[in-house]
């Protein structure tokens, strides 16, 4: 599981690549959380290269989204693959975390 984080002013861009299962989450959770949560940054997450998400991946997103919300910041996910998108639909993640089609829309959402 790979993670790239870039921060510009109050917006963090996170790109994930690989499988968000338990081993994958173990590899990236610390970097992901420490990059965006302490400063309460609005965050957009590129999921276009995430091929699988398990419950631990959902837990990571939900925990970070809630932590950011407590600081009046927002996380937006974008471009999930169809199999990942189906999981989001099943668990109704959209009720908690906005999920949009592309980065431009995600940045607009994050700034609202």
């Amino acid at each position, binding site marked *: 599981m790979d993670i790239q984080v870039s921060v510009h002013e109050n917006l963090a861009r996170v790109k994930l690549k690989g*499988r968000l*299962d*338990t081993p994958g989450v173990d590899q990236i959770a610390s970097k992901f959380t420490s990059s965006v949560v302490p400063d309460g940054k609005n965050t957009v997450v590129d999921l276009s290269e995430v*091929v*699988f998400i*398990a*419950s*631990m991946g*959902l*837990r990571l997103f*939900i*925990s970070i989204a*809630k932590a950011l919300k407590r600081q009046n910041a927002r996380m937006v996910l974008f471009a999930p693959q169809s*199999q990942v998108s*189906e999981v989001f639909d*099943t*668990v*109704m993640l959209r*009720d*908690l975390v906005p999920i949009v089609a592309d980065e431009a829309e995600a940045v607009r959402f994050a700034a609202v």
Partner: protein
Amino acid sequence: MPPPEETFDDRTRIIRRDDTVPVSVQEEFGHYLVVISGAGLGRRLRLDSEPIVIGRDAQSGLVLSSPDVSRRHCRVELSKGEVVATDLNSTNGTYVDGKRIDGPTPLPDGSILEIGQQVVKHERRSAREVQEAQELDRDLEAARNYGLSLLPPPIPSGPVQTEWFILPSAKVGGDAFGFGELDGGGFMIFLFDVSGHGIGAALLSVSILNVLRQRALPATDFHRPSQVLASLNAMFRMEDHNEMFFTMWYGVYDKAKQTLVYASAGHHPAYLVSSDRKTVMPLKTEGPIVGVLEKHRFDEASTGIPKGSSLHVFSDGVFEIEDKTGTQLGLHEFLPTLNQPGVEGRSEPQRIYQSVRATARPGPLDDDFSYLVVKYQ
């Protein structure tokens, strides 16, 4: 009087190591068969130069006292440094990593040997690792046995029959299920899946299971799935439970009316399979994961239950698997399994498990496998 201040020599002290003491000792590794599911759970047997016969016979090297195990079921032995399994013309066959074997078959480190409902894992371990593992195993086995003891026994006869199969991906897991009569009529059926695996998920799983077994939700009618999910959602907030949550499917069957009312919380559908297995109907309502959204309302729905049909409720570990080519499979790829005919001598959940194992890549499954079938006669 204050204690005298400690004084330290500023120079680095030279420590001479006794080079006659070996820094590390070459550890001896051995091959072990570990029963990870079914009769004989937790048994660990070292494989030496003598073959081990596995069977129901009391003279077997590994005795598995279960009716689906033949007296002399299979043999496991070391051959040219490799562990090999051979079926001994057993009634129900021997499976290695989900595939029925018909001759001497390699059993690599980590692979799974299935004998009826019994699951045996081959592990290559050092003596020290085995000792440490045995200590941990004893604790985990106690935890696992407690979790399993909370699951209801299958119901083999009567108008509502049940069969199930559960295999945690770790020693203990976060999946659980239950069923049983409710006061005032109605037959309750549920299955839930706590996020993650292992002991943390298992602890939460046991808490939820006990609440449901004792019907210990305040001001909740257990005949109403929407109320049960809403009450669980209020009781098990993820902020109060180490950031863990769970998905769930819950239904109540009315025998007199032959209807099922159901609701789901972040869980994929359960499926109603017709008696001829040609029709598979998804049963799902919209609802978020339990513990995530505060004060959320859950919907419920109902359906008629034709006699002879069966309800399949299962966890996502059943279908979220990688096949032998490394391709990620999902629910769509799994569903045709429900149309396939039953197998003589195997329960429906066992048949499904064998089918999934045959598709999945070798080695243990990534997630807990939990499968409950309710048959309406």
